[in-house]
C-alpha cells in the first residue's frame, strides 16, 4: 500500500473512532453517575438510542427561526469532527494535525460555541439569550485558563503542535514533572467548566435558573438537537483524549506502525474508562455552584496553571 493511502486510512479511522465512540463515552459517564447515586442506570448505550429517536422525529422550528438557527448544529458538529481529526488519540502523527495546533484547537471550540450562542439568540426568547450570555461568560474565562494549562507542556516540548507535544511527553524519561501535576489539576477544572458539567453547569438540569447549556438548546428538537447532543458528547471525549495526550500519553502508536495500534486502542479505552469514572465521581461529590462563583472557580484553575508554569521556569521540571 502506498504510504499516503495508509495515512489517509489511519486519519479516517481515528476520526470515525472518536465520532462513533463519543456517545458511548457520555453513556459511560452517566452510567457511573447512576451507580454512584445508587441508581441502576440506563446503560452505556442509552445515548445511541436517544440519538436514534431524535433523528427519526420531525424537526420543529420556531416561526422566527433564521438560517443561522438551522445551520448552527451542523457547524458545531463539523467543528467537533475537525477537532477529533487533529488530536492524538491512537497515534500522534496524523494527516490533518499540521493544519491546527493547540491554539487553533481552542479556536475550533470557540467557533462552535459562538455559533451555538448566536443560534440561541436567534429565536428571541428570554432563555436563549440568557444561556448565550452565560455560556460566553464561562468560556471567556476558561479560555485563558486553558491556554495557561497548555503552556507547561508546550514549554517542555518547545512546540505548540499537538503531535510534537504528545511525542515529547510520551518519549521523555519517566520523570515526574511537578509542573505538569498543577497543569493537570487546572485542566480538569477547565474540562468540567467547558463541558457544562457540575459544579459549573448541570447537564441534566431543567431548572431554568441554573441552566447554561440546556438554555442554549431549549428551542432545538429532532435532528438538530441530535447533532448538538452528539457534538457535546464528542467535545467531552475530545477533552478527555486531550488530557490523556497531555498528561498520560504512554501507549500512543508510532506513525505508520500497525502493530502498535491494538495496544494503543486498548490503552486508550482503559484510560477513557478511568477518565469517565473520574468525571462521574467529581460530579457526584461536588455541588452545583452559583453562576457568579464560576469566575472564582476558573480563576483558581488559571492560578494553578500559572503556578505550574512558574514551577517549570524556576525548577526546570
Amino acid at each position, binding site marked *: 500500500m502506498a504510504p499516503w493511502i495508509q495515512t489517509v486510512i489511519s486519519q479516517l479511522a481515528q476520526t470515525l473512532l472518536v465520532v462513533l465512540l463519543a456517545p458511548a463515552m457520555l453513556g459511560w459517564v452517566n452510567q457511573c453517575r447512576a451507580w454512584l447515586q445508587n441508581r441502576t442506570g440506563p446503560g452505556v448505550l442509552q445515548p445511541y438510542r436517544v440519538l436514534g429517536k431524535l*433523528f*427519526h422525529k*420531525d*424537526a420543529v*422550528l*420556531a*416561526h*422566527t427561526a433564521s438560517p*443561522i438557527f438551522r445551520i448552527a448544529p*451542523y*457547524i458545531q*458538529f*463539523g*467543528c467537533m*469532527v*475537525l477537532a477529533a481529526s487533529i488530536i492524538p488519540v491512537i497515534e500522534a502523527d496524523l494527516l490533518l494535525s*499540521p*493544519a*491546527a*495546533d493547540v*491554539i*487553533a484547537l481552542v*479556536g475550533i471550540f*470557540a*467557533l462552535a460555541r*459562538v455559533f451555538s*450562542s*448566536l443560534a440561541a*439568540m*436567534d*429565536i*428571541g*426568547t*428570554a432563555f436563549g*439569550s*440568557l444561556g*448565550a*450570555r*452565560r455560556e460566553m*461568560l464561562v*468560556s*471567556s*474565562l476558561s479560555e*485563558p485558563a486553558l*491556554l*495557561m494549562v497548555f503552556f507547561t507542556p*508546550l*514549554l517542555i516540548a*518547545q*512546540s*505548540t503542535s499537538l503531535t*510534537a507535544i504528545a511525542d515529547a511527553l510520551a518519549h521523555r524519561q519517566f520523570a515526574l514533572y511537578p509542573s505538569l501535576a498543577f497543569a493537570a489539576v487546572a485542566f480538569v477544572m477547565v474540562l468540567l467548566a467547558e463541558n457544562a458539567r457540575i459544579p459549573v453547569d448541570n447537564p441534566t438540569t431543567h431548572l*431554568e435558573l441554573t441552566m447554561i447549556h440546556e438554555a442554549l438548546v*431549549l*428551542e432545538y428538537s429532532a435532528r438538530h438537537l441530535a447533532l448538538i447532543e452528539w457534538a457535546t458528547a464528542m467535545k467531552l471525549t475530545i477533552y478527555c483524549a486531550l488530557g490523556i495526550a497531555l498528561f498520560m500519553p504512554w501507549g500512543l502508536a508510532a506513525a505508520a506502525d500497525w502493530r502498535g495500534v491494538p495496544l494503543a486502542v486498548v490503552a486508550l479505552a482503559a484510560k477513557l474508562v478511568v477518565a469517565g469514572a473520574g468525571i462521574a465521581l467529581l460530579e457526584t461529590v461536588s455541588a452545583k455552584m452559583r453562576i*457568579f462563583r464560576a*469566575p472564582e472557580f476558573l480563576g483558581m484553575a*488559571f492560578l494553578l496553571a*500559572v503556578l505550574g508554569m512558574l514551577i517549570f*521556569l524556576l525548577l526546570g521540571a
Partner: protein
Amino acid sequence: MFPAGVLPLDVVLGVVLYWFGLGLAGLARPGSLRFVSRVLFPLSVAGSTVLAIAGIAAVPGQPDTVVLVLGLPDLPFHVRLDALSAFFVALLGFATTGISLFCVGYFRHGQGTSPGLLCLQYHVFLAAMVLVLVADDGYLFMVAWETMALSSYFLVIASHRIPEIRRAGFLYLLLAHIGAIAILLAFGVMHGAGGDYTFDAMRASEPPLFWASATFMLALFGFGAKAGLLPLHVWLPEAHPAAPSPVSALMSGVMLKTAIYGLLRVSFDLLAYQVWWWGVVALVLGLLTALYGVMFAAVQTDMKRLLAYSSIENIGVIVAGIGLALIFRTYDNPHLATLALVATLYHCVNHACFKSLLFLGTGSVLHATRERSLGKLGGLIRNMPWVASLTLVGALAIAGLPPLNGFVSEWLLLQAFLFAPGLPNPYLNMLVPLGSAALVLAAALSAYVMVKFYGVIFLGQPREPALADAHDAGGWERAGLVWLAAACVLLGLLPLPVIQLMDYVTLPLTQFAIGDTAGRAGWFLLAPVSADRASYGPLIFLLGIAGAVLVTFVLVRKVYHGRIRRAAPWDCGYPAQTPRMQDTAEGFGQPIKQIFEPFFRIRRHVPTPFDAQPYYAATTEDRLWHWLYLPIAQLNQRIAAWVSVLQHGRIYLYLLYSFATLIALLLFVN
C-alpha cells in the same frame, strides 16, 4: 503594472493631487447630492484602487525619495516611499476602496454639512493621511498630521446642529492637539542640535540614552493619543457615535493605523537604537488598553460606542505586539521580533478590514432604522439579509475565530508570546507568558462582545414595531461591504502571500524576514518558526469543517429525512411573551459588569416602594474621567480663575499692563 518610467511614488502623489481635485470639484455644486455621490465618489474609488496597487507594487521596491517644490523657502517638503510607508499606503488604498464604494450610496440629504463641503473634507482627509505616510521630514509630517486632524474634526461634526456632536468633536480636537504637541516635541528632541528636520538627519543622529527614551515616551504619548491608547482613549467612544458611519469607518479603520505607522517609524526607524524597557512599557500599556477596551465594549448599549471601545481593544493588541517586538529586538532575537512585528502589521490590516466593515454595517442599520441604541433593535436578519450576513463575517473575524483573518494575527502574536521564555531576563520570562493570558482573555471577551453586538442587532425578534419597515442596503452599500468582507475571508485563508510581502517591510526594521520559513511547509500551511514548532493551515481548516458539515448534512438527509414543522417558540408555559422580554444590551453585559465591577463607575437609580412613578436606571462610566480628566479640568479652571483677576475688560488697564511689561523688559535687558 504602470507605464515605464512612472514610479509608484509618482502615482501616490498623483492620487493625492487627484483627491484634492475631487474635493474642490465638490465645491462646484455644493448642494447637489446627486453630483457628489454619483459622480465624485465613484471617481474617488478609482483613486483608492490605484493607490492600493501602487502601494503593493512599491513594497518590494527600493525606497524612492522626492523633494517637492512646496513648503517654506529653504524648508521644502521631503517625500519618501519605502516598504513601511508603501505597506500602509496599500492598506489605506485597500480599505478606502470599500469605504468610498459604500459612500456612493450612503449620504442622504439632511441637516448639517452640505454634500459638496463633506466631499471636500473627506478627500482632504484621505489625501492628508497619504501625506502622513509618505512624509520624510518632521515639517511635512506635522503639516499633514494637523490637516488630517482638522479635516477629520470637521467630518465628525458633520451634523453640527446637535450639541452633543459638537462637544464630542471638541473633545476629539483637544486630544488630537495634545497628542500633536507630544509628537512635535519628539521630533524636536530627535533633530538635536542640527536643526535639520529631515528624517535622514534624525536617523543619522544618535541621541544619548535619556533623550532617546524621552523621544520614545513622547512618541508613545502623542501617537497613543491618536490611536486611543489608555488613558488617552476617551475621545474615541464620543467621536465615533457622533460621526457619520463611513467617517467612523475611515477614522477607526485607517486613521488609527497612521498613528501606529508613526509609532513604528519613530521607534524602529528614526531612533538609532532601542532599550528593552520601552518594549515593556508598550507591552503593559497595550495589554491594559486591550482589556480595558473590551470590558467597556461589553457593557455598551450604543452600537457605535461599542465598536469604538472594540477599536481601543484592537489598538491595545497592536501596541502590545509592538512592545513585544521591541523586547525581542533589544534582546537580540530577530526571529521572534520579526514574528511579533508581522503579527502587529497583520493585525493592522485585519482591523482596517473588519472594523471598517462593522462600522459601515452599523451605517446601513442606522439608515434602515434611525436607531443607534441596541435596546431598540433586533431581528434585522430577516429584513436585511445582505447587511446581516456580511456583518456576520466581520463579527466572526473580529472575534478572532478561525478560519477568518482575526485569528491569523492573534495566532501569530500568541506564537511570539509563547516562545518568549529564553529571554535573558528571568522576570520578563515569567511576565511575558502572563501577557499572553491577558491577550487571550481580551480575545475571548471580544467574542463575548461580538455575540452581543450581532445577536442583539440582527437576531431575535424586533424590539420595536417600526423595525418591520427596515429595508436592506442598496447596491453601492452592498458593494462596499462585500469588498471588505471578501478581504476578511481572503486574509484569513491565504495569509502566506501577505506575510511574504511583509518581509520587505520587516527587513529594514529588524534585519530579518520570516516569509521563507513561514512558507517552507507548503503554500497552504503557515509555520512562522518551523514546521515542528507550530503550523496552521486555514484552508485545510475550512475544507475540513465544510467537508464534515456537507457529509453530515447529506448523511442525515439520506439515512433519515429533512422534514420540518413550523410552530411558535416554546414559551415555558407563559403565553403572554412579548419581544421586550428578550435580553437587552444591558442584560447581556450584566455579568461582565458584575465580575469586573471595580473597573466601572456605576450609578444606579433604584426605585423605592413609595415612588409614584418608579423607574430603574443604571449608567456605567469610565473611572478615568473622574480620576484623571476632571481633576485636570478643575485645575485648569482654577488657574483660569486666578488669571481672570487681571481681566476687567477695560482698555486702560490693558494699556497699563503693556506699559508695565515694556518697562520690566527694558529693565531686564539693561
